[in-house]
């Protein structure tokens, strides 16, 4: 079985994100970029499935500017076999990403697509679900455990009340939650080997997809600064303030 793992290039989780002065988005120039941490978990899971003999090939896909090739290399160093880069300078929104991934899925015919549940830049939490709808495949989102048996996959999902296990028939979509696994450190020999693994470069046009944004971004602003707190002298004063000032009770 072939596994497809989309990986997104995002501002590194350690970077303190700054909004561009003109409100057009966040500053990415000269900022450290890394693989979305949820996607690292997806790659790790895929590589483990391959190591267990459940999967035969792991294909990492990234969409965006040429530098996304480096994000694919990271996946290759973790153990993915080859990469596909859909290169475009266009702003990509979840629906466009889902459509591009559908086109790739139709070419590659994977048995399973594992995505991060969301990307830490915009926290959309939408691509996996949209892709499942477009392909008409079952989905198991927020996975904390997956088990493949024959033609079905059991996905344990993290939900508000606790855990839920769904059984899906393959091919299927899984999106990863934090507790699914702990991604490995790439080994030095694998980093070296990753340079020799193939990456195919495609364009949205070649895949027959128009990636133009469907949503217009109005403006991006920093969250308002927190106001200084107040010390209250007594419970009565607290209750009074909650009623009259905060108006929450």
């Amino acid at each position, binding site marked *: 079985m072939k596994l497809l793992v989309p990986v997104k290039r995002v501002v590194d989780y*350690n970077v303190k994100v700054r909004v561009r002065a003109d409100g057009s988005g966040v500053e*990415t*120039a*000269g*900022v*450290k970029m890394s693989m979305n941490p949820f996607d690292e978990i997806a790659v790790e899971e895929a590589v483990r499935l391959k190591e267990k003999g459940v999967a035969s090939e792991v294909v990492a896909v990234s969409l965006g500017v040429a530098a996304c090739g*480096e994000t694919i*290399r*990271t996946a290759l*160093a973790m153990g993915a076999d080859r990469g596909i880069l859909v290169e475009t300078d266009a702003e990509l929104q979840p629906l466009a990403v889902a459509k591009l991934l559908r086109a790739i899925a139709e070419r590659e015919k994977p048995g399973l697509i594992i995505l991060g549940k969301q990307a830490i830049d915009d926290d959309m939490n939408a691509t996996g679900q949209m892709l499942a709808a477009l392909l008409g495949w079952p989905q198991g989102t927020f996975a904390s455990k997956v088990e493949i048996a024959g033609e079905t996959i059991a996905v344990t999902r993290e939900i508000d009340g606790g855990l839920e296990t769904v059984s899906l028939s393959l091919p299927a979509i899984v999106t990863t939650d934090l507790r699914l696994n702990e991604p490995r*450190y*790439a*080994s*030095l*020999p694998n*980093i*070296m080997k*990753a*340079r*020799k693994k193939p990456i195919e470069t495609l364009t949205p046009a070649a895949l027959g997809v128009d990636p133009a944004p469907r949503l217009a971004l109005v403006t991006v602003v920093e969250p308002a600064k927190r106001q200084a707190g107040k010390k209250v002298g007594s419970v009565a004063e607290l209750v009074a303030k909650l009623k009259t000032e905060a108006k929450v009770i």
Partner: protein
Amino acid sequence: MQTYKAPLRDMRFVLHELHDSRRILALPGGEELSPELMDSVLEEAAKISEEVLLPLNASGDEEGCHYENGVVRTPKGFKAAYDLFRDAGWTSLACDPAYGGQGLPEIVNKLVEEMSCATNLAFGLYPGLTHGAYLALRDHGSEELKARFLPKMVDGTWSGTMCLTEAHCGTDLGQLRTRAVPQPDGSYRVSGAKIFISAGEHDLTENIVHLVLARMPDAPAGVRGISLFLVPKFLPTTEGAPGARNGVVCTAIEHKMGIRASATCQLTFEDATGWLVGAPNKGLAAMFTMMNSERLSVGIQGLGIAEAAYQSAVAYAKERLQGRSLAGAKRPDLAADPIIVHPDIRRTLLTIRAYAEGCRALAGWVAQALDLMERESDPAAREAAEDFTALMTPVVKALFTDIGFETASLGMQVYGGHGYIRDHGVEQFVRDARIAMLYEGTNGVQALDLVGRKLPAHAGRSLRRFFHPVAAFIEAKKDDAAIGPLVQALAKGFGALQLATAHIAERGQRDAEEAGAAATEYLRLFGLVALGFMWARSAEIAAAKLPAANGDAGFYRTKLATARFYMERILPNAFALLPAIKSGKAAMMALDEADF
């Protein structure tokens, strides 16, 4: 708090922009490498250093190593971290692919070493010593010894040591007493007592390969009678597994000021089986071939600590609220301004930064020469690289380790009294940094090596490998619109260095004590000018790239500002050394021993 993020942007600057990595990539062995690959390697090394080694730094220091009945245990977490480090292949980074190495250049290796030194100096010593032993064995071992031992040392399942020091001899190895008696089967029986052996015994690897300096029965006295032997803790079986226990035991470990997670061992050899490495009585020479690389590595310990001290000090300076800016309150919303508003705190932080980045640039230059030495096919280019590394090795070792200690202390100063308290973790930098000025040849001995051996070497040819590029650069750039003033400051320092060199050459020839009396200041002067050259060249690149830099503009602007700080605030210290050097030995030799 000990905080550290690998300075990857500056490392890439040193690797690609300042020293042009393509030069190494174009040589044999570089076919499979690319700048992007080097960057990926640095990024992954940064991850391991930040996430695995750093969290064990303070705990390893607090706990130290444990000794019981000849067995040494490293602190909690070290074994797991070492296993992870080894399994991920980091011990093999710069080793020969013929023995399972990854064949990456030394310049990448040294940058990775900087990260492990910054995050956990004590941990880094274990694989560091193995690499030293690997180099000595690779260059001098018989094919049979190399085949048996090198693959295991490269993949890190076995570690290495360097056993030179004995209780009565450290610097003066000519007094060495450990004996090696030849056996009919070609092996030797080694007996004697060594002290201060780093990683002499520990629980990280299944076997330990000691490289031991010892004397054969008929050896001439002094340094001409010393040979090098390989003595494993367990004798390997024919299948290459650790077999019978050899006659070497750890009788104690030292309690010490810093690097407390590194086991410093007393070892007793009793009829231990060993094999000769290299020619009889040529042991010191064999040891010295890997000295350039090893001494650069010890220098990098100082650099790593400087970077760690810098980052921890900056974090605190932005957070600690004391006093108001002399130019009027900067943060009226707070009880006081963060101390980073004060000029004296900025002076302190920039001093550490200018030293750290300057040392990184210089280390890159010397490491590149180590690579050229190994990879160049043109004999003249190889000779030039060899001359240059030989000349710069004592400078880098002593200057960087002095700076490591000085900057660790400066970093503590930023913390005020809180820096002196254990909890903040920055006093550990001061304690850990101190040893690097002592081992691998004390810094005083490095200075003697520079004036006594390296200056006169090949009738000054080695010296010219440094002087010529500096002089040419000054000549070409002294009126440059962007960096002219920086180059003129460099020229002044270089002028002082030329005068000092001429003085030592002239006086030292007549009276060796004169050279000895000037050596330490001379090395410092040399080092400050070398850093000045690195800063001027860095500024040249930054100025050229700034106009089109976009996202990197901040990086280049900071480079230029720091270059200016170095030239205006640090390099002038070099000028003051010239009169001290010229004053000669008289004042210090005047006293009678009894008057001390």
